[in-house]
Every structure is written in structure tokens, then in C-alpha cells.
């Protein structure tokens, strides 16, 4: 799968989650967080954003599925064809974490 890093259609993703904080919750949260930040930019507590290829999204979902507990946790993935179809408005502090310049 690695070799396909460069290919495929792009889409703009917003991912957010709710993880139930019971006995194993912390572990699920830790692991899923680590996975998400390899693919997307962490913009707010449980919200990620970024551009992914179809294939990368599949990879991300597959990796996540190993940890998500079907009955307790909920992940929502919003999917837009392109970032330009998305208007982003900041209320309060404006902080562009998605910038590629640091």
C-alpha cells in the first residue's frame, strides 16, 4: 500500500470523534489520536482536518477500526471534494494550524 502514497483522487476531510471515557477509553483515545495526527492536522480537541487521497483515507479508516469500540465510540468523517467548497470562519481566536509554513 505504501507505494500508492503519491496517487489517487484527493478529498478534503474533517474528522471528529467522541470516545467514551470508561476503563479502556483512555487507551482508545491515545491510540486513535496518534493515528489521526499522522494523516491529518489536529485543529481542536477532538477535531482533525486535512487533504487525503482516497487510498490514504482507506488506510486511516482501517487503522482506526482496530481500536474503535463499536458500541461506545463514535467517529464522524465529513468529506468534501475540495477545500474550496468549504468556508471556514473563526469566532474568537484565529489560529491557522493547517498552515504548512512553520
Amino acid at each position, binding site marked *: 500500500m*505504501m*507505494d500508492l*502514497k*503519491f496517487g489517487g483522487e*484527493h478529498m478534503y476531510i474533517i474528522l471528529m470523534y467522541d470516545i467514551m471515557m470508561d476503563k479502556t477509553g483512555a487507551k482508545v483515545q491515545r491510540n486513535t489520536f*496518534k493515528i489521526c*495526527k*499522522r*494523516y*491529518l*492536522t*489536529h485543529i481542536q480537541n477532538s477535531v482533525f482536518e*486535512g*487533504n*487525503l*487521497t482516497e487510498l*490514504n483515507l482507506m*488506510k*486511516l479508516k482501517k487503522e482506526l477500526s482496530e481500536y474503535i469500540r463499536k458500541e461506545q465510540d463514535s467517529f464522524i468523517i465529513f468529506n468534501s471534494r475540495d477545500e474550496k467548497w468549504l468556508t471556514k470562519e473563526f469566532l474568537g481566536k484565529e489560529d491557522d494550524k493547517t498552515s*504548512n*509554513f*512553520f
Partner: protein
Amino acid sequence: MGETFYIFQDGQLKRKDNNIVMSTLSGQKKNLKSEVTDEIYIFGEIETNSKLLNFLSQQKTTMHIFNYYGFYSGSFYPRESNVSGHLLVNQVKKYDNTEERVRIAKEMLKSAAHNIYRNLRYYNGRGTDVESAMKDIQRLIKRLDYCASIHELMGTEGNIRKIYYSTWNAIVKQDIRFEKRKKRPPDNLINSLLSFVNSLIYTTVLSEIYKTQLNPTISYLHEPGTKRFSLSLDIAEIFKPLIGERMIFSLLNKNQITEQDFEKESNYLYLKEAGKKKILIEYDQRLKRTLFHKGLGREVSYRYLIRLECYKLIKDIIDEKQYDGFKIWW
């Protein structure tokens, strides 16, 4: 296409949680999403370790390093993973066959010259009179056809560039005297800007070559030397007018870059950090700019045009289809 990160701050670049993390002394952190990152440009002072380099290699991420003064130092070019012995053998064979080599080199130069011509035509239609330069270049393009050796080709190319540069004083609205391209060292603002932007294009081309099976050291127009990836220079030649020079004109004419962005004490040799950043933001946007490609029937970005150029070269090398260089068509 993957993402590109540009790092200006000083600090550490490390592998953490199978991810790339940049952290500064003041405690700021930035995640460079390892799964989607293709390229990292380093302009600051970075501490790192082999653990990270191993990881970059695994992730096939190229890292380009620029020194304190903003000059290109080199790239961390991960182990080639797209290799093809068949292609390599043929790439060398094409190089060795003078007739074929001249044909490919000629096609590259013709494209480069055509793109230069189009830049002039653009400004000619907009109130800058460069008519006579256009005619001269047109004449030299025709002469390219009769060149029988790389030497002659390079000579003609030099002449084209000379005429081209002579028009820059008219094209650039800022009051900068630019007479001659000087590289070692660049002696005025435009020369410094050109050197910086060309090094960016060179690295972008290198990153795109990396994604194909081509060997970056075997080139046709430039002599394949040691210690450099000369195929990048070949292909960069074609895209310099479209990506680099157009950007320079626009940056200067909109006064986005002025003398204030350079260190005056260095005789405008060094760019200040803010200047570098402005150029890179603009450069990054230009690479992402898309246009409709007739042949492919879909939108492609400027960056992808570079990759397409590599693919066309491959097709020529394996004798599938004659190489037809990229010429601005819109």
C-alpha cells in the same frame, strides 16, 4: 499529491509516534503528517538524528536543506524505491547515442525557449515593448533546429537567455538595474532572487523525478557530472520561465518583494527570513495552481506538469513515443 512543509524556525526534528514532530526551544510544536508528506524544506537550524532519517526513508519523504543564507545545500534523497534496471540501461544508452541525445536536448531547449517567448509575448501585449527581443528569440529558436552538437545548443541557449534578460529592465517596474545574470555570487537583487527561485524549482523537479523510475544523475542537455542531479537541471530549464520567472515578475511588479526584503549590507545577496517566506508562500501556491490538460482531459497542477514531463521522457527512453517537450499552450 502529497504535502510540502516549509520550516523556518530553529529546533529539533524528531520521530515520535511514527510521526514527524518539529519542536522549537520555546516549546512550540508542529506535527508534519508523516503519511501524507512528500517533501520537507528546511530553512532554519535543525537538530535531528538518524532515527528520523531512517523514518523519512521509510516514508519516502525527501528533505531539502538550505543554509543560513538561503542557498541550497542539498537533499536527503531516500533510497530509491522506484527502480527499473531496464529503464536505467536505456537511459544511459540514449545518453551515449549522440544523435538521440542531441534530439532530446534540442526538444528540451525548444520548449524552454518557447516558454520564454510566451513570457515576453505576455508582457508585450501589456504595454511593455519587447517586440525586437521577441523577433530575435524567434530567430534563435529556428536556429536551434540546425544545431548538431550539445555545445552549439548550449551556445544558442545562452544567446536566448541573454536577449531575454536584456528585456527585464523593461518588464520589471521597480527601479533595479539588472544587466547580466551573475551567479557566483549574485550581484544584485534580481540575480539573488533568480538564484533562490531556481534552486526551489530544482528541488521540486528532483522530488518529482524521485517519484518516477528515472535516474536523476543521467541527463541529456547538461553534462552528467558527479555530485549533482543533472537531470533535474534539464527538466528545470523547461519550467523556469513558467513557474519561476513569471513569479519573479509578479512579485516585483506588485511590490511584494522590494529591497527591504534583502540584507542591504550584503549587497542584496541575502534574503531576509520574511522575504524567503513570502516567496515560498507564493511559490507553493503556484505549484498548486491547476489548468485543464487537453490530452488527459482533466485538471492538473503545475507540479504535476513536471511529473508528466518525466513520464514523457520515460516513454522516449523506452522507445514508445518520441519526447515532445512541454510548451505553454494557453
